[in-house]
């Protein structure tokens, strides 16, 4: 198992360095895909082994139900993003947005981005978890700024600045947690190690852990795009190259939520702290859903539209985590998976539209259904999926979270439902604008590259299947993860 984890980390590392040596863009793209295939295969293998063998801990790495779930997300998304990168980069080159020299650098960063995400997930130590999260910010900032034009630089600057401040808060919180550990007299055990914490965190000083919880939730909350610290998110997600936007929205936000979930598991060991942390997350969650509404109702940029939809979905997930009941946690974890798959695929679709119509302005993209009928159908299906409608898995997970909300009173649940309805109104309004109407006269019916169709089709297939059926092993994983986050220790 340990070797497998090392392999999963080594493959992107080696591929990332090796791809720098490849000059031809197409070759680099295919090489990148091969690397991602290998990484994903290793990750899937890890998941399989985990399902068969159970938790694992060695040499600073660990696997339990919680992080295995997120490894699954990274495995699927890095694969689809690598796949979509092939046609995307070729198109950007053809349009002259990029030069050939820049391409290997992109794939280098891509692989290292995946590397840092995997690293975040397998770290056993909460301090090193912080280090890895900060590393994801730095690598992805370079990806956001990749095209080096004015707007992407602006987005990257805001991204690094706001996230660094947020992450600094998380560091402060982590130090406070460490102090609580030291104060409780556990200096000889593994400092900030998850296993040590999960065994004796209930003996810590609650006031101190509460303070630490506030800082940690704000810190990682910034990274996860919870309002009102979400301000960098629409900029960064809309300016990054689209495959990366998909990864940022689907995988990176999930990884940040993982950091929250892992810390929350510690806080939940102290009921008073768990309660306050939960209330804070519910507050952030409701605020995130609410704040997305005006920006989704009045939006002109297709990628920003999707970015705000991410804010909304992450808010919903934070709600589920905040509720703390098994039902809410189950829904939140399931929603993380569903949303990651749906949102990344939706970004790929939007990227294809932006490239074909040569604009991000929603009002200039018209008549998709006439120019690319199949693609238009996929667009509609994915929008419905991220808005949480059947027959997609998102509906079930959303429903579960909302159902959990009604256990402690009705008004919060009703408020969330109405806000979600407003969000849906914005999404579907602009989607209908995109799909129908008269396409520009100079636009010919286009053939899509098979890579896009495969990447998006695969995601849709996964979403529809989770809409009706959650495999037994995944259900078991989710239940085990729920116990972990809920404060059940290992």
């Amino acid at each position, binding site marked *: 198992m340990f070797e497998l984890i090392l392999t999963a980390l080594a493959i992107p590392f080696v591929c990332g360095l090796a791809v720098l040596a490849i000059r031809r863009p197409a070759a680099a793209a295919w090489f990148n895909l091969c690397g991602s295939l290998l990484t994903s295969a290793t990750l899937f293998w890890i998941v399989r082994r985990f399902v068969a063998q159970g938790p694992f801990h060695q040499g600073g790495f660990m696997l339990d139900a919680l992080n295995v779930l997120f490894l699954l997300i990274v495995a699927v998304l890095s694969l689809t993003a690598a796949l979509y990168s092939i046609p995307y980069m070729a198109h950007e080159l053809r349009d002259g947005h990029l030069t050939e020299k820049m391409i290997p650098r992109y794939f280098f960063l891509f692989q290292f981005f995946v590397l840092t995400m995997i690293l975040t997930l397998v770290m056993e130590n909460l301090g090193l978890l912080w280090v890895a999260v900060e590393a994801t910010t730095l690598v992805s900032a370079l990806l956001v*700024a990749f095209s080096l034009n*004015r707007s992407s630089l602006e987005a990257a600057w805001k991204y690094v*600045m706001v996230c660094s401040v947020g992450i*600094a808060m998380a560091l402060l919180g982590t130090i406070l947690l*460490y102090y609580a550990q030291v104060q409780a007299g556990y200096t000889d055990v593994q400092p900030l190690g998850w296993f040590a914490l999960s065994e004796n965190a209930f003996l810590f000083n609650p006031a101190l852990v509460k303070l630490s919880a506030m800082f940690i939730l704000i810190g990682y909350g910034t990274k996860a795009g919870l309002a009102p610290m979400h301000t960098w998110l*629409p900029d960064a997600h809309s300016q990054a190259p689209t495959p990366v936007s998909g990864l940022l929205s689907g995988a990176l936000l999930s990884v940040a939520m993982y950091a929250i979930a892992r810390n929350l598991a510690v806080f939940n060991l102290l009921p008073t702290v768990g309660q306050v942390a939960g209330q804070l997350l519910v507050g952030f969650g409701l605020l995130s859903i609410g704040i997305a509404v005006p920006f989704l109702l009045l939006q002109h940029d297709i990628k920003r539209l999707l970015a705000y939809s991410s804010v909304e979905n992450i808010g919903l997930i934070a709600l589920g985590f905040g509720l703390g009941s098994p039902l809410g946690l189950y829904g939140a974890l399931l929603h993380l998976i569903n949303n990651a798959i749906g949102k990344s695929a939706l970004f790929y679709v939007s990227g294809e539209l932006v490239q074909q119509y040569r604009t991000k302005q929603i009002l200039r993209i018209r008549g998709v259904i006439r120019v690319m009928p199949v693609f238009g159908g996929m667009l509609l299906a994915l929008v419905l999926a991220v808005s949480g409608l059947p027959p997609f898995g998102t509906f079930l997970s959303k429903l579960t979270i909302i159902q959990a909300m009604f256990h402690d009173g009705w008004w919060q649940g009703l408020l969330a439902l109405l806000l979600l309805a407003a969000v849906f109104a914005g999404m579907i309004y602009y989607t209908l604008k995109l799909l129908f109407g008269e396409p520009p006269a100079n636009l010919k019916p286009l053939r899509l590259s098979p890579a896009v169709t495969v990447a998006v089709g695969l995601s849709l297939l996964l979403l529809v299947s989770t809409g009706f059926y959650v495999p037994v092993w995944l259900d078991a994983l989710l239940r085990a993860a729920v116990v972990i986050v809920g404060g059940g220790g290992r």
Partner: protein
Amino acid sequence: MNVLTVLLLFTAFLITRVSNLRLAIQILIVQSLGVAVACVWSGLGSELMHTYIAAMLTVVIKAGMIPYALFRVAARLRNETENKPILSPNQTSLAAALLLAVAYGLVDQALPGLGRDALAGALSGFLIGLLIMITRRQAVLQIVGLIMMENGIYLLGLSMTRGLPLIIELGVFFDVMVAVIVLGILTFRLKLSFMTTDTTVLQKLKG
């Protein structure tokens, strides 16, 4: 220890009044050196080897490599100074004083029973760094503010737990260094693209 706290606060207040980029970086060096000395100081009492390593790393990275990188960036930004900060130096100093009071209040309420002045000093260093990021337009000054925040956090950890475990500490240093490099690249690119490193021009993306 109190001398060092005063030094830290003094440098923090000094930066609130500076408009020259190079001067700000020099003050940052002084502050980082102070942090390193504090690190050694806390290590003196015990036989903890890792505090000395941490102190050495602080000197090398925070007083050496980071300022070096910042100087290199600043060297390319000839005519850039903080002309019209969002809060004037006087107002910023006043606000910093206010934050100092807030820090004392917070420490008294949340973390009683530890070295009060050291904690409050570290916390106010953190907050003043944040204040600099909010009230300054120049990209380099924002980076300086960020590192001041890091210094504050580091001191806080030092005065509470004698620093984090070494492996984490190493990671944090590595991250800070990479962050400054990334920010340096971005600053340089800002100068190329926008002809200025005034970050208030970065307001195209909104809504």
